[in-house]
């Protein structure tokens, strides 16, 4: 006998036989009703189940898993579905396809996660947890690729760089990868101000980054900041850097970010 068939009698609701057509959601609290149907989903509050009802519902859950159903936390399901939508966007698929075989496979994974983070950020949502996930899994390389992706550099810098190099008669993938490696490990084009940095630390890092850029013949640097605190840090930086700059910085401001291009 299918355990689903036993559940209606135990829980005493006539619509339970419709469970197969509804989504099942489990929760546990002392305020929600024991059973509730809402927008095609049947919610069961396990906190309010009688002791004899537990094993029956547990059997339903086990059987469902064996039949191939996925058991997933509701929030994780939302993230999963949102990721699938973003991941299937034409521009993201094309960018990933473009870089497949040109950059390391691991970096494709990071870029894919970073493209999702970028989309979430552009919708005005908090991305700190997503970024932590990327950095926890991939370390500094993950952080750098994520930053470069968020600033659009894979499209605006790295792709054109590849195409420019590819057009040269002495092109080799290894030559491109050597420069790509510098970009993702040292980010000579870009510097991202973090909230944990003091003004002095931010200044020291910018000077160091300018030095790296000079070494590679790059005479500009993009400084990025997200949030009011970092925006103010960048304003302080610009005042101190002014004597070293060869032209007026180009400033792009959004509601929650600032991007400054400096030439030196």
């Amino acid at each position: 006998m299918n355990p689903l068939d036993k559940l209606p009698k135990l829980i005493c609701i006539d619509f339970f036989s419709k469970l197969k057509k509804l989504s099942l959601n489990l929760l546990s609290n002392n305020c929600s009703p024991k059973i509730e149907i809402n927008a095609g989903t049947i919610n069961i509050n396990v906190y309010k189940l009688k002791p004899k009802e537990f094993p029956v519902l547990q059997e339903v859950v086990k059987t469902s898993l064996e039949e191939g159903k996925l058991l997933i936390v509701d929030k994780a399901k939302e993230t999963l579905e949102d990721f699938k939508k973003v991941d299937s966007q034409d521009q993201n698929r094309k960018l990933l396809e473009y870089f497949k075989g040109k950059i390391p496979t691991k970096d494709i994974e990071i870029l894919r996660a970073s493209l999702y983070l970028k989309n979430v950020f552009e919708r005005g949502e908090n991305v700190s947890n997503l970024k932590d996930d990327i950095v926890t899994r991939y370390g500094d390389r993950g952080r750098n690729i994520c930053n470069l992706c968020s600033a659009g550099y894979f499209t605006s810098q790295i792709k054109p760089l590849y195409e420019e190099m590819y057009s040269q008669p002495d092109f080799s993938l290894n030559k491109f990868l050597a420069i790509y490696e510098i970009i993702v490990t040292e980010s000579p084009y870009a510097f991202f101000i973090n909230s944990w940095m003091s003004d002095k630390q931010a200044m020291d890092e910018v000077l160091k980054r300018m030095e790296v850029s000079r070494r590679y013949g790059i005479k500009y640097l993009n400084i990025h900041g997200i949030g009011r605190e970092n925006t103010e840090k960048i304003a302080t930086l610009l005042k101190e850097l002014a004597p070293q700059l060869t032209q007026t910085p180009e400033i792009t401001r959004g509601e929650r970010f600032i991007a400054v291009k400096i030439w030196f």
Partner: protein
Amino acid sequence: MKKVITFDKSARQFILDTFNKSIDQEDYIVEKDNPGQRVLTSDGEEIKLDEFAGIKKGSEVFIKSDLVSLIKLSDDLKDPHESVR
């Protein structure tokens, strides 16, 4: 995604009980009848209660809730013919 049972964080304990799992002193998910044995993800990672996102078929494959694990899950659930990777 019709073939899904969802649960909110408050019902995690029920799910773990269902699969005969419990939590050790460091908050890792363990086998109830062998508390020294921590549950592993398909990548061989131990999994804390806070990181627990669910279970999928295949000898009870435990899933973490971080973005990278969910991307992997998305690929596992996808029709292989439509995958970009």
